[in-house]
């Protein structure tokens, strides 16, 4: 088994399931280590880890109470919270910078959203985070979202092919995908979305219900994740990190995992070693304003009922 159902359960402990938003990426290592290194168990929690194929799946899993925790891109959660009154709360931020980039061919670089006016951009899935991201950035840079065509090109590596073919002039991809393309000898021009608007990084979410009823569990989970994150950002632990990670994604080679880890570590540390896992409420404010401005949300919400940045202090107190 991939470690989710093993015998090392904690007697008398509570069971909590974490559902990833999209398979197992190296970025999920903190959560994996929290379980595999026994941090969760130390706090009396039986951790389970399951995967899914998309943000919406993961969010619905939370709402169905099939799982309790997930880590998703904040754009999606913000939109559903504002528009649908979805009862999510955010209690930690694992990645302090956007994992997504606007990528284009180096020969025909796309330098800002203006370059995309009337053109097509490749996104990962229709209606998903990358789609919303394009809207948001377009508004930020004074382009009407409708003036940018979207084509679902899937993975960044495949999107590159469509760019060569001329179907799209740019695409949204991850740093890892860019690295893979560059290793294959392609020249890629890329800029991080953070250079246009600083939105929060991937954040841990749970339901309002869980927070209200089991605040202590949420805090313990966060503490375990924090320790997992601390473990990951330390290059000394890379070998062990990769070993843990590979219990869930056995297919990845050690070298590949190392390469991805090298790409991911700066994102974890983007706000500084002392600010790991910190949630920046002002970024949420900025994001909410931008979303409202772009017409992606119909109303704004009181972020103090959504973002619980101070839980981190309680968690740190446990460590």
């Amino acid at each position: 088994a991939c470690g989710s159902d093993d015998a090392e359960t904690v007697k008398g402990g509570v069971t909590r399931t974490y559902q990833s938003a999209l398979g197992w990426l190296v970025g999920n290592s903190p959560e994996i280590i929290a379980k595999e290194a026994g941090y969760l168990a130390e706090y009396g929690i039986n951790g389970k880890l399951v995967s899914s194929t998309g943000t919406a799946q993961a969010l619905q899993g939370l709402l169905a109470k099939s799982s309790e925790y997930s880590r998703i891109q904040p754009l999606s959660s913000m939109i559903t919270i504002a528009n649908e009154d979805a009862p999510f709360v955010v209690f930690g931020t694992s990645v302090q910078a956007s994992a997504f980039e606007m990528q284009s061919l180096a020969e025909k670089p796309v330098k800002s959203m203006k370059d995309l006016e009337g053109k097509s951009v490749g996104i990962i899935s229709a209606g998903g985070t990358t789609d919303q991201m394009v809207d948001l950035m377009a508004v930020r840079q004074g382009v009407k979202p409708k003036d940018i065509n979207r084509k679902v090109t899937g993975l960044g590596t495949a999107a590159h092919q469509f760019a060569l073919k001329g179907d799209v002039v740019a695409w949204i991809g991850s740093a890892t995908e860019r690295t893979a393309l560059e290793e294959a000898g392609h020249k890629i021009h890329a800029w991080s979305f953070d250079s246009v608007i600083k939105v929060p990084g991937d954040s841990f979410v749970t339901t309002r219900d869980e927070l209200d009823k089991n605040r202590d569990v949420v805090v313990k989970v966060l503490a375990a994740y924090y320790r997992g994150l601390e473990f990951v950002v330390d290059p000394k632990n890379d070998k062990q990190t990769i070993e843990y990670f590979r219990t869930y994604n056995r297919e990845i080679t050690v070298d590949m995992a190392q390469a991805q880890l090298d790409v991911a570590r700066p994102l974890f540390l983007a706000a500084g070693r002392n600010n790991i896992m910190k949630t920046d409420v002002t970024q949420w404010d900025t994001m909410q304003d931008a979303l409202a401005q772009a017409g992606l949300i119909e109303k704004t919400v009181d972020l103090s009922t959504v973002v619980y940045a101070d839980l981190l202090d309680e968690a740190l107190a446990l460590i």
Partner: protein
Amino acid sequence: MKRTSTFVDRWLVFVTTPLLALVIIGGWEAYVRLSGVSHFVLPGPGDVFAALKTQITDPYVWTEHVWTTFVETVFGLLIGAAIGIASGFAIGKSRILDLVLRPFLVLIQVTPKVALAPLFVLWFGFGESSKIALAALVCFFPLMVNTAFGIQSLPQGHGDMATSIGAGRWFRFARVELPHTMAYILAGLEQAVVLATIGAIVGEYLGGDKGLGRYALNLQSNLQIDLLFGAIVLMAVYGLVLYVATTSLKKVLIPWHESVRLTSRPSK
């Protein structure tokens, strides 16, 4: 006895179907209330029907989504049917072609197409063609299997008769084999029309900017689950309508077949 049962046949369905529908909706409502399942996972029937009402009165839903999917389904079905029936006859009539071709046709069918989506898009573009191709590829199989089965079930006497009157290949095909196989083809078509719908919708899930699949995907990412279930109901009804249209072909094409003949025989 006969009159009554025809009468019952004709009218009962107008009573039972709504009744059964009510039971199902009632069960759904009860489940939603008693289990306390989140409305983000399963909204109550009331919410869904409210959503459905706004959807079916929105012309955009019809002109963009339903129409797009319909066109994709129909073209996909036509292409898939052509491939399926042709290959079914080929492998049904020739043991050698059967042995040679069938493995590959089965391979095409069992290969998970999701992973091949980028190739589809690369070959057929982002537009409707790639969805049509997917629908065709998904729906040809039952037609192939059933056509082959039908042609292989040709009663020996029919074939002998054709031989004895000196029928040429084409005549034998058009006047003996095809009419006999028609019933089997139609049974395959019943399944193909459903698969073509699914294929088109899955294709839209994988990419595209119109159609019911894309629409549902948007609604799901927005967690507009009541609208999503409205869309699901819409898709289901849409598929059902296509299915019913297909099955009614039977009465036109094979009125002589045992499965169609209205029997006046005593009930057993």
